[in-house]
C-alpha cells in the first residue's frame, strides 16, 4: 500500500544518509549482484543450523562499542514526551548510546528492505530489530541472516522470562531470538452495533454482519482463523486441513460478508464504524479501550492465535555486544514493567504484574485506575484458560509455504 516499497525510499530508510564512496561502490555491486542473480539463477542460500562452536566463533573478540541502533515498530516502547525513559536509564547505566527508530510497519515490507542488504552482507543500519515469528522470521533464520545468541550473556532472560516464551517451536532453545512482547489475535467488536457477548468465531460468518466483517490480509492470520472455525489445530494441520479452511474462508468471502482484508488499518475502520466485528490484535484494542473507545476483545472459544515479536541481531550488525546487552536489560523485571505499562501487550516477564500493582498503589486517580486495569487485563496477563486456547502459526517448509500461500492468497487478494 505504499511508497514504502519504492526502492529510493527503502534505500533512504535502510542506509546511512551520507554513504562513503566505498558504500556507493558496494551498493553498485549489490545491484549488479541482484541482476547477476536474475541472469543465472539465484544460488540457494540456506545454511545449516549453527554448529556447537558457532556461538563462541561469532562472539569471540567482539567488544562493546558504546553505541546501538535499534529498529522497532511504532508505539512499541515507553515514551515520555520525546524521551524513552527505559533507554535513557540503559544509557546511564551501561554507557551505550541508543539510536532508537521505528522503521518497521509489517514483516513483509521490512523483510523486503533488509533482505537484499543482508544477502549482500551489507549493514542494514541497525544492530537490533524486532521481528514477528512467522514466514519471514523463518526465512531470515534459514538464510543465516541472524546472529546466534550467547545465552551466557542473557542471565536475566534465563531467570525472568516466562516458561511459555522459552524454546518456541520456530526457534529451538531461543538460538536466534528472544521475545520483545507477545500478542494475541482474536475477535474485536463494537457493542454499539453488535448485540450481546461474542464468544464464538462463527460470528465472523454470521450473515447479520454482512459487509461489516473485517478479516486480516496476512495469510497466516486468516488461515489460522479458517482452521479454528473448523475445529482444526493449526499446529497439527496438514494440506487437507488447509484446503478445508480455504473453502470455509472462500465461502465467507463469496457471501459478501467480508468488507475488506485489512492490514493495521482495521483499527480505524472498527473505531469509525466501517466494520462492526473483526479479527484483531489484543494490544491495539486494549489501547483503544484505554483511550475511551467502547470496544471489546475476545479470544474465541474455538481458539485464537498467539504470536511473538522477537528481538534479534542481523548478521551484519556493527554493535552486536551492545545489542545483546540491551536484550538482557529489558528482561529485568523493573524494566519490563516500564515497558508493559506503556506497550500494553503481553509481557514475557510475568513478575511485572506485582510490580505494576505496586506502582498503581503509589499513584492516584486516572493513573492508578489505568495501571490497575493493566494488571487485571486478560489481554496483558492472559488466564491459563485463555492461553490453553491459543495456537501459533504453523511452521512451514519452503515447499509447504507455496501450497499454503497458493490456497489462501487468492482469498485475501482475489
Amino acid at each position, binding site marked *: *500500500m*505504499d*511508497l514504502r*516499497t519504492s526502492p529510493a525510499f527503502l534505500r533512504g530508510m535502510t542506509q546511512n544518509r551520507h554513504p562513503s564512496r566505498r558504500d556507493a561502490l558496494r551498493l553498485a555491486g549489490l545491484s549488479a549482484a541482484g*541482476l547477476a*542473480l*536474475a*541472469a*543465472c*539463477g*539465484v*544460488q*540457494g*542460500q*540456506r545454511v545449516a543450523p549453527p554448529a556447537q562452536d558457532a556461538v563462541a566463533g561469532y562472539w569471540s573478540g567482539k567488544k562493546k562499542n558504546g553505541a546501538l541502533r535499534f529498529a522497532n515498530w511504532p508505539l512499541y516502547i515507553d515514551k515520555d514526551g520525546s524521551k524513552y525513559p527505559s533507554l535513557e536509564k540503559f544509557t546511564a547505566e551501561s554507557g551505550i548510546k541508543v539510536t532508537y527508530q521505528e522503521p518497521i510497519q509489517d514483516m*513483509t*515490507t521490512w*523483510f*523486503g528492505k533488509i*533482505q537484499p542488504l543482508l544477502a549482500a552482507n551489507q549493514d542494514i543500519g541497525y544492530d537490533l530489530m524486532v521481528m514477528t515469528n512467522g514466514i519471514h522470521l523463518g*526465512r531470515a533464520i*534459514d*538464510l543465516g541472516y541472524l546472529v546466534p545468541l550467547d545465552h551466557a550473556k542473557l542471565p536475566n532472560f534465563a531467570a525472568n522470562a516466562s516458561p511459555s516464551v522459552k524454546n518456541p517451536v520456530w526457534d529451538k532453545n531461543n538460538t536466534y531470538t528472544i521475545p520483545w512482547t507477545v500478542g494475541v489475535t482474536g475477535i474485536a467488536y463494537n457493542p454499539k452495533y453488535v448485540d450481546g457477548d461474542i464468544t464464538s468465531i462463527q460470528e465472523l460468518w454470521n450473515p447479520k454482519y454482512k*459487509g461489516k466483517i473485517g478479516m486480516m490480509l496476512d*495469510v497466516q492470520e486468516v488461515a489460522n482463523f479458517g482452521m479454528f472455525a473448523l475445529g482444526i489445530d493449526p499446529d497439527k494441520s496438514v494440506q487437507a486441513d488447509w484446503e478445508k479452511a480455504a473453502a470455509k474462508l472462500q465461502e465467507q*468471502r463469496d457471501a459478501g460478508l*467480508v*468488507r*475488506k*482484508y485489512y492490514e493495521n*488499518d482495521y483499527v*480505524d*475502520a472498527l473505531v*469509525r*464504524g*466501517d466494520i462492526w466485528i473483526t479479527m484483531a490484535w489484543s494490544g491495539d484494542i486494549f489501547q483503544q479501550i484505554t483511550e475511551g473507545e467502547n470496544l471489546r476483545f475476545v479470544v474465541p472459544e474455538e481458539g485464537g492465535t498467539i504470536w511473538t515479536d522477537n528481538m534479534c541481531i542481523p548478521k551484519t550488525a556493527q554493535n552486536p555486544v551492545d545489542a545483546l546487552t540491551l536484550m538482557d536489560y529489558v528482561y529485568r523485571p523493573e524494566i519490563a514493567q516500564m515497558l508493559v505499562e506503556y506497550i500494553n501487550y503481553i509481557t514475557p516477564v510475568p513478575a511485572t504484574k506485582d510490580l505494576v500493582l505496586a506502582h498503581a498503589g503509589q499513584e492516584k486517580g486516572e493513573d492508578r485506575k489505568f495501571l490497575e486495569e493493566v494488571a487485571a487485563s486478560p489481554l496483558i496477563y492472559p488466564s491459563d484458560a485463555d492461553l490453553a486456547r491459543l495456537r501459533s502459526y504453523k511452521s512451514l517448509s*519452503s*515447499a509447504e*509455504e*507455496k501450497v499454503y*500461500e497458493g490456497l489462501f*492468497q*487468492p482469498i*485475501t*487478494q*482475489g
Partner: protein
Amino acid sequence: MKRLTPYLLILPGGLWLVVFLVVPLIFMVSVSTQQGDVVNGFVQTFHIANYTDALGQYRTQFLRSAVYGLVGTVLAILLAYPVAYWIAFRGGARKSTYLLLVLLPFFVSFVLRTVSWKFLLADDGIVFEPLKSAGLLPADFHVLQTTTAVIGGLVYNYLPFMILPIYVALERVDPSVVEAAQDLYASRVAAFARIVLPLSLPGVFAGVLMTFVPMTSDYVNAAILGGPDNTMIGNIIQTEYLVNQDYPVGAALSFTLMAALLVGIFGYARALGTQNVLEAAAR
C-alpha cells in the same frame, strides 16, 4: 568531432536508460522463466509456463486494472479539460497561481492524500453520517471498499497529470485563430470543435499516456480504498515480489502488464494518428 556531438549529447541520458532500464528489463525477462524459491534459490529452466500460469490465475485482476485505467482516464479527461481550458483562456494574470493550485496536492504525500479519503468517506463519517440521519441515504450505504472509491481515488491522484499537458496545448492556441474562425462566421461551438479541440489533442494524447499507464498499474488506491473485489494487478505483483518473494511469477506478471500497456498505447497512437498529433505539437 562535429558529427559526434549529437551522440555525445545523448550519451549521459542514453547510458542512464541502458543501465537502469534496458539491463533490468533483460534480467526481468530472464527471471520470469526461472523456477525455485528464495531460500533454495531460483534456477533458469526456461519455464514459459510461468506466464500462462500467472495469466490464467490473475486474468480477472488484469482485466479489472485495464477497465479501471480506462474509466479513470476518460473521467480524468472530462474533469481536466474544462479546468485546463478555463485556466488557459480565462486565467488572466493569475494563471500561474491557478497552476500552483493544481499542483498543490503534490506537496502532500500520495499515500496520505489517499488515506485521508478514508476519513472523509467513512460509513458514518462527516459526509455520509448527516445524509444517513436525514434519511437521504440507506443505512447500509457505503463507498469505501467499492469500485467507485478506487476509481475515484485514481482519478483524484492522477488528475494533475491530465490537466497540465492539456493546459500546455491550449495555452499555445493563438486567440487570433479563434477570432479568425468567428470572423468567418463560425459559431462559438464550431470554432471550438473545429479549431481549439484539434489543436489541443496533442495535450490530451500526452495526458492519456501520463494517466492511463500509471492508473492501470497503480496499487495504492486499491489497497487503501478497495475491498476484496477491487484487487488490481499492481497489488498482485507487489504481493508476489514482497510477500511471497516469488520473483519469477512477479516478473512474468510485470512483463505481461508492460507488454499489454505498450500494445494498448501503440494501438491508441495508431488509431488517433499520432503522426498528425505530434506534428501539431511540434509546430
